[in-house]
């Protein structure tokens, strides 16, 4: 093959970038241009990505990498470039597919919005950044796009800025993920320092850490892995940095589907998978990843049970499912993590878009105010139902297969996490059945004139529903296609354990059945738990008080420091001024106003600073 599609893979991010530039230049006052440019550019990207993927599925050229010298620093060179591996090819398709469907969907969902072209320009910029992140061939380039997706996410979460919650959420999303990013940057710095020749590209990283040759000390490896993982924790909403993700639901729903369910939040999982060799070189780091992931999975799933906002339930569900992926990675199963990322992208995007369709119809997000929508919204109901079954892990839908693979790995590697995973699966099925039955079954409440959404919204739903139903078959216990393809068969296979499949399907069905008993049949009273253990419900409703804990532990002290320094400025400095001027007035001397006292205090502070420095640094030499 002379030229391959992989060689022109750099075009994929360029399509949305051109769309972004065109929208920036001509988008003002245009209403349809955004839809047009956004859809066309993402479709072009999708077609090319599929071609790249097909190329990678066939034998022959499996890998393409191109880079150029970007900058010289202190005698070492840093390259920038792109790399197409099987993993990136898969991610490209996921990102462009969801992005294309969301672009189409938004044509209907955002129709009435005045700033629709601004919306499309942000989405295009996001697609560009996300695809750049996927294609990056080294840590530094990845980091740059990593920051860019963060900025886009910030802009889109705060898109409806007239709502104060949206503004606050945007700020929170940005600051919290930045904490993670700082960790990632430190990890990259450490990597830079210890890698031979300061190489930061994934190929070299793979070679250095994979060989187990001990080029880099074990403790350093652990630190690097953990710092990179901190970045992933921030981006992928893992405990304890998950607090921003549910709040980010203040953004438009298509954005929640694209950024906060299918693509950007999965970037953390992708990052860990991309630097998997580093993690595999340190058992400590792997354990940290596995336990944080497992804990997040159960933790967020329980919160999901007590929420009433349809998007927040889905958001906690996302946090929990991302926890599953991390857990899989931490247990050494990259295939499991990526497989779940793949299926989750489809069914969660489907659920969010379905939720958007519901919100579009009933103009509320509170599931207690909804009901009986199945009669009026047939397509939405059916597709949402498929999404629910897939997420709850009911065979033969896609979520079952990927979850089964993770649970199977957990059973063999760490039975504790298997138990955690099964429990989380039960809660997942329960909150999803609660959500589904409250919204679509029962008697209509609130909005009586709900009607099905336009075709631009339902067609993406149908496509995603097909994928959510069927995409799981690429990897089953009897058929290790994905695993062989992704890892060249290097990964340990655990074989099919029938017992795991039975358990996982059983807890899923049990959760759904319990939800049916409570919310449809009424055999179990809805307040069965809240009347007996109101504190428990309250704890879950308040999300284990995480926000309050952060407020008390981080925000207040930091703000307090700011206040303190300002207080020194305002009260002590000012107070001294007033003392000085007051004394001066008392002595009856004029002109205190011209001799502004503040400047004296500034002088005093300067001299005090000098003395402190002298005493602290020099004093030790003489005493």
């Amino acid at each position, binding site marked *: 093959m002379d030229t391959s599609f992989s060689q022109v893979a750099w075009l994929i991010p360029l399509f949305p970038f051109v769309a972004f530039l065109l929208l920036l230049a001509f988008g003002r006052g245009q209403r349809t241009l955004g839809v047009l440019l956004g859809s066309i550019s993402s479709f072009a990207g999708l077609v090319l990505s599929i071609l790249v993927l097909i190329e990678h599925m066939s034998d022959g050229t499996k890998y393409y990498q191109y880079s150029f010298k970007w*900058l010289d*620093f202190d005698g070492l060179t840093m390259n920038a470039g792109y790399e197409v591996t099987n993993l990136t090819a898969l991610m490209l398709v996921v990102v462009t597919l969801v992005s294309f469907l969301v672009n189409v969907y938004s044509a209907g969902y955002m129709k009435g919005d005045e700033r629709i072209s601004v919306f499309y320009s942000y989405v295009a910029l996001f697609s560009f950044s996300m695809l750049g992140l996927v294609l990056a061939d080294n840590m530094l380039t990845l980091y740059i796009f990593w920051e860019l997706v963060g900025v886009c996410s910030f802009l889109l979460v705060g898109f409806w800025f007239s709502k104060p919650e949206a503004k606050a959420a945007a700020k929170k999303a940005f600051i919290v993920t930045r904490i993670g990013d700082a960790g990632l940057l430190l990890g990259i710095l450490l990597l830079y320092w210890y890698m031979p020749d300061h190489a930061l590209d994934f190929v070299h990283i793979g070679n250095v850490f994979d060989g187990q040759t001990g080029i880099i000390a074990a403790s350093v490896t652990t630190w690097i892995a953990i710092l990179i993982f901190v970045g992933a924790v921030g981006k992928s909403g893992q405990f304890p940095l998950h607090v921003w993700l549910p709040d980010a639901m203040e953004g438009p729903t298509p954005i929640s589907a694209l950024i906060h369910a299918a693509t950007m939040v999965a970037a953390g999982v992708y990052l860990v998978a991309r630097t998997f060799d580093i993690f595999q070189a340190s058992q400590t780091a792997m354990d940290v990843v596995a336990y944080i992931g497992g804990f997040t999975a159960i933790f967020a799933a329980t919160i999901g049970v007590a929420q009433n906002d349809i998007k927040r339930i889905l958001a906690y569900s996302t946090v929990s499912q991302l926890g599953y992926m991390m857990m899989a990675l931490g247990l050494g199963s990259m295939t499991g993590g990526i497989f779940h990322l793949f299926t989750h992208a489809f069914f969660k995007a489907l659920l969010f878009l379905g939720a958007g369709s519901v919100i579009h119809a009933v103009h509320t997000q509170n599931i207690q105010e909804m009901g009986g929508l199945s009669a009026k919204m047939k397509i939405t109901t059916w597709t949402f139902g498929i999404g629910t079954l897939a997420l709850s892990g009911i065979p033969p839908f896609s979520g079952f297969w990927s979850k089964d693979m993770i649970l199977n790995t957990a059973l063999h590697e760490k039975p504790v996490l298997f138990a955690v995973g099964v429990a989380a699966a039960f809660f997942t099925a329960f909150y999803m059945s609660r959500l589904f039955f409250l919204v679509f079954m029962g008697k209509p409440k609130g909005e009586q004139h709900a009607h099905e959404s336009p075709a631009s919204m339902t067609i993406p739903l149908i496509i995603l529903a097909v994928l959510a139903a069927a995409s799981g078959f690429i990897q089953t216990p009897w058929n290790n296609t994905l695993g062989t393809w992704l890892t060249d068969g290097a990964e340990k296979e655990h074989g099919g354990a029938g017992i795991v499949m039975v358990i996982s399907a059983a807890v899923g069905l049990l959760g759904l059945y319990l939800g049916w008993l409570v919310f449809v049949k009424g055999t179990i009273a809805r307040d069965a738990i809240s009347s007996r253990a109101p504190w428990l419900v309250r704890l879950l409703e308040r999300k284990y008080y995480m926000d309050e804990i952060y407020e008390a532990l981080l925000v207040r002290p930091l703000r307090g420091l700011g206040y303190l320094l300002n207080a020194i400025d305002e009260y002590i400095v000012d107070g001294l001024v007033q003392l000085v001027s007051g004394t001066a007035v008392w002595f009856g001397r004029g002109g205190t106003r011209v001799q502004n006292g503040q400047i004296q205090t500034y002088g005093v502070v300067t001299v005090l600073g000098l003395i402190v420095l002298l005493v602290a640094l020099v004093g030790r030499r003489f005493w």
Partner: protein
Amino acid sequence: MEAVQQQLQSLTWSDAAYLAPEWILVAFTIALAVLDLFLPRQSSRSSIGWLTLGGLAISLGFAIWRLTDVIDKVGKTDANGQPVSHVIRLMGDSYRIDVFSSLLKILFLVATMLIVLMSLGTVRKTDISDRGEFYYLLLPAVVGAMIMASSGDMITLYIGLELLSITTYVLVGIRKHAVQSAEAAFKYVVTGGISSALLLFGMSYLYGITGATNLGAIAQGIQQHASEYPALLYVSFFFILAGLGIKIAAAPFHYWAPDVYQGAPTPVTAFLAVVSKGAAFAIIFRILYNVAFFASSPDYPIADDVFLAVLVIAAAAMLIGSTMALRQVNVKRLMALSGVANAGYLLVPVGLSLKGMHASNVGEFIFYLAAYLLMTIGMLAVLSVINKSVGHDEIGGFAGLYYRAPWTAAAVVVFVLSLAGLPVTGGFFGKLFILLGAAESKLYWIIAIMVVSSVISYYFYFGIIRQMFMRATIDTEVRVPVTTGIVIWLCAVATVVLGIVPGPVLDFVNDHFSIVSDLFVRLQ
């Protein structure tokens, strides 16, 4: 005590030719002052502004020419195969034209040109009545900064410093009818006095110990006598640090900065933040690397302590600057405190000293200074436009800017990203290079502080973005004057270019600059 003798040569005509960039500015100052007297009272003084710009441009041309000339001689050998120094030394090494000083002069001149250009669009007669003076007084101020960059002797260094200071005192107070401006000028004069006093006191000890004012001679004297006067040397260096700490507005010597920046006319604020600060950094580099570096004796590791003090001041500046900025709503005060934090970042390469493999301190410093120059001047240029539109400097003036002036808002995004140290901007690589330098010196605590303080700083920088994108727009038209618009776009584009291809700038400095020949003053 045996004084180190040195010969002070007088300035010859051929030497004077090397000083063309400085002479031209002096000549323009005098000519413009006279012209200002003869121009009719009503006439707009923008002609003087354009002439000032012209003078700066000619001077810049000569400075660049001199730099290429100096670079050509790097690494040349004479007929006997002996290496020839490329440094031009005037008056017994008290005035040096080397790669270090030439690069800084070019930065100062470019910055001042941008500042004059931005003033041409926004300075109003009702605000500054003596606009002629406003423009041509910038020239002696730059000359002062250039002398500081070139000096190899405490006397020239001090003369440069005072020339710069005194002219900026006048410039800060040039809005004669504004109380704020007068108050700022007063505060600046007093603080400047304290700074000079501390600096002179410290320098007098150096003279006392070595009997010399030339930095090379002092270094030699100290190498011989350091062990005899540890206490005096400590006092001397710490006083010098404090005096210059005031000039660069590093914590805890920064309290004057918010008041003065706020009261000064915006272009003067930009001048203080960039040129004045940069020039003080130039002499910090010169003094510390020339003199303090050699002051250690077996019992007293003075050099280590002084460089540690620099890092401690840097850490304090980063943390205090960014936390105090959290509650600021006035953009000028915000920029002042951001300037405090940035002084901290700029101090890091100074304080890293020369450890192990790490020798690119000056490269890191100059790159970040260039990035800082662009983002600060750009941001203040936007602010001066906004001030014209809404009449104040509060952050609320940026509300809904994206919907009123989308392109200006896009430029502000670039500046904010750069200030916050995010890609793809010059500020990102500036900080990254400094971080990498610190990583090479294995000073992890300062890396941690840099990262923490930049995380804190996101909060207030993004306050500006939130205003522009996420606030309802206010109904005032934003009109960007052509000249100010040019400044904004030059800065924004250059910031992005530095963020995409940082290599050339850094390579240029690292390839041509050598600490031994360009920073060290050594007797021959």
